[in-house]
């Protein structure tokens, strides 16, 4: 057990917890955007920033990634924290002003107009899709293009591998800013991503004739789970 204080309340946290975990245990709400309880934390949106004091120095850190430490004093609502959060959401809004999800966070933080503008870009690089594809779907088709010396890639972005992607659309589901969208047209699924459009052939149900899931995704499941090859001939509605 690790004992720390959050907003002057003492918390008993388990070893390995993050500050966000500890705060949620005692019902303290910390705003998040790139966090999801089923995924590893990304620390990328910086909305969950809190102020910590340890050994006399204080600093801002991300609550979703910082591990609990004995004796830590955490403040989730200091002036410094509030300012940093406002700036972070304003930056995100400048990049992607047409996102209901971002506006929801902005209003929560008391922002009704960002102080600056940028050329709109749908993807805010929060990494939710990257982590979902890796950790939930277990495919790992999406990754960041890494920056580096003499690797100037212009705008950093995510890249969806057409080879690895199975067309399951989990990324479109999790994306908070509609940077990845899915559209099923006739026998084709079209996945629109920051690195281009991907098309997948959809499987037709033997019984009702409806196109219901990408063939590549079904093949992936059959192979992974060791199922018989005709298990998905019928759509879920027509299966006995």
């Amino acid at each position, binding site marked *: 057990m690790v004992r720390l204080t959050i907003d002057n309340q003492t918390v008993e946290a388990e070893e390995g917890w993050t500050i966000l975990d500890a705060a949620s245990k005692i019902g303290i709400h910390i705003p998040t955007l790139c966090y999801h309880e089923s995924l590893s934390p*990304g*620390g*990328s*949106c*910086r909305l969950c*920033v809190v102020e*910590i004091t*340890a050994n006399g*120095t204080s*600093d*801002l*850190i*991300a609550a979703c*990634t*910082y*591990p609990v430490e004995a004796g830590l004093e955490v403040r989730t609502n200091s002036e*410094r924290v509030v300012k*940093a959060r406002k*700036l*972070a959401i304003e*930056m*995100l809004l*400048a*990049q992607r002003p047409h996102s209901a999800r971002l506006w929801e966070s902005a209003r929560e933080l008391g922002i009704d107009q960002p*102080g*600056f503008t*940028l050329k709109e870009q749908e993807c*805010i*690089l*929060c*990494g939710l899709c990257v982590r979902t594809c*890796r950790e939930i779907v277990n495919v*790992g088709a999406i*990754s*960041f*293009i*890494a*920056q*580096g*010396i003499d*690797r*100037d890639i212009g*705008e*950093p*972005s995510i890249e969806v591998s057409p080879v690895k992607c199975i067309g399951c659309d989990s990324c479109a589901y999790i994306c908070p800013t509609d940077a990845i969208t899915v559209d099923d047209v006739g026998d084709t699924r079209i996945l629109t991503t920051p690195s281009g459009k991907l098309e997948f052939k959809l499987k037709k149900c033997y019984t009702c004739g409806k196109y219901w899931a990408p063939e590549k995704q079904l093949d992936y499941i059959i192979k992974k789970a060791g199922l018989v090859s005709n298990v998905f001939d019928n759509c879920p509605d027509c299966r006995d």
Partner: protein
Amino acid sequence: MGGVIFSTWAGKVVDNRSLHPDEYASAGDLRLPLQYNGHRVTAFMSWNGLVVADDKVDVVDMAHTYLKEVQKLSCGECSVGYLGIKIMLGILARIVKRKGNEGDIELLRWLGVGVKENAKCDFCPSAITPVLDSLNYYREEYTKPVASRKKRAKSTYMTRVTAPCMEACPAHQDVPGYIELIRNRRYKEAVELIRQTNCLPQITGRACVAFCEANCTRNDVDSPVAIRALKRFAADYEMDGGSAPAVEKTKAVKPRVAIIGAGPAGLAAGYNLALIGYKVTIFDEQSSAGGMALVGIPAYRLPRDILERESDIIRRLGVKIKLNTKLSRDITLEQLSAEGFKAIFIATGAHLGREFDIENWRQGYAGLADGVEFLRDVNLGKKIAAKDRVIIVGGGNVAIDCARTCLRLGFKEVTIVYRRSRVEMPGRKDEVEAAEEEGVKIHFLATPVKVLTKGDKVIGAECIRMELGEPDASGRRRPIPVKGSEFVLPADMIISAIGEAPDLSFLTEGEPIETTEQGTIRVAPLSYQTSQMGVFSGGDCVTGPATLIEAIAAGNRAARSIDQYLTSGKIAPSEEDTKQRLTHDVGLWRQRTGGVIARRARQSPRQLPPSGRALSFDEVESCLTAEAAVKEAERCLRCYRVMLLAVASES
């Protein structure tokens, strides 16, 4: 850099702007470059502050240029760092064009502080520092009307990007770059990036001394990033996945180059020359390639198939490796020239044990051996009968390798005798620990003075205890014998591992290749040219016994020199060399303390348990799993340092 007019370097503010040059306060011991290619450096901007040495410097333009360079390395994986810098650049661009708005400075400062306080890694927060300094101390420059700024002569800028780990590495590998690729599961790209400066990633991923880790910023937080293990992971992943390395055979249209020695220096030179189209032949006296990596590093640290694979990759580029061919015995430098080799690179290493000067040594007693010879014999497959007790003299990696090899050969009691204490021991710390775990005993502060014999056999060593006096030339405290403290260590064998030297017996009388007093080949610094035109040399035969990565770096550089020599007949330091020398002394650690960094446990590769592993030559350390490698890569703080120099147009 002339008189410093203004500086915030390392957080110390020196402001001489309103003073006469005679009254300038000193900026302390700034170790910043003064000259670049014969031109005066007028200002310097980097993670540790802003330094101005000429009042004509346009600080605003400089901040804009600097931040553009910073943006190229801002990864985008945290919104505040990446977007903050992007928005700041937009504002700076309009200020530079004199189209700034009221309140722009406040906006810039607000954004800058936001980046400094709330970005995710160490890069953006440290990189933004000099820009914030310029906003705080050169405010009037940002608000000046157009007319007054137009008079300024535009500066020429020079940029260099490095990092503490990169700077410590003799080959200046882009460590944060390949770690970031591993973190993003781009393993193939990671190993390709490594090969740009290090053609032996599997060998160095196992046996490098890792200067980078000693200089890692995490040393101040918890423990260094496991850089060597990460390199091995990327390289082994490529091999285990069965994919061939992305090295393309080039059409060899350029002249023939001969390389003597297929060790790390020779292989690196051959690799780089072949990549740019030279016809390369490497000659080596042994029956396999690898040099000291083959004959000096035991298989439990570096399996033989790994050596084979990496030299094969170089062969695949078209490099011919002629084995069992010894310089002076089978070929001569003259012959090589006559055969049409237009340049020669001598990389013969340091394979001679240093003379051990104690009583009864070299008197023909059975049971005395030299460390490098002993390892060479074992590593080349010679059968050596194990005895009961062996003493190994020395504290370097050769001594440790001998000791652990002896255990594996079946020696029952293995004792290292080292004249200094544990802290001065030059051997790799983890190797020393591994040896002790396996049962090697170490006698610190002692040295043999006499070999004890019976008949023609060795029965032990008379040793004397030492104490440490004043530091010697190496900076380590000098060991001094303690009078009357002699004691006897019984042994059937004594191995001397007190140092190695190059064997330069191939340089015959009258050879125009000069040597040094230390018995090494003399070369011009940076160019690796010997006193004979067209003959270059590098690696241990130039430096004396050093490390794999120093040899690889020498091979890389020698290849560049040889190319210059064969292309233009002249050798000049490359721009990168000039920049490296310029910025080497700056000092890259965090002098201006950044934010709190969360401690995260270092991921260590699995090791064979000490109890059984000393019975075989099986590799002791395994590769990190992909999961552990990614976790370890996430510990990297990305301490890239962007340096921008403003250079005066006049000399």
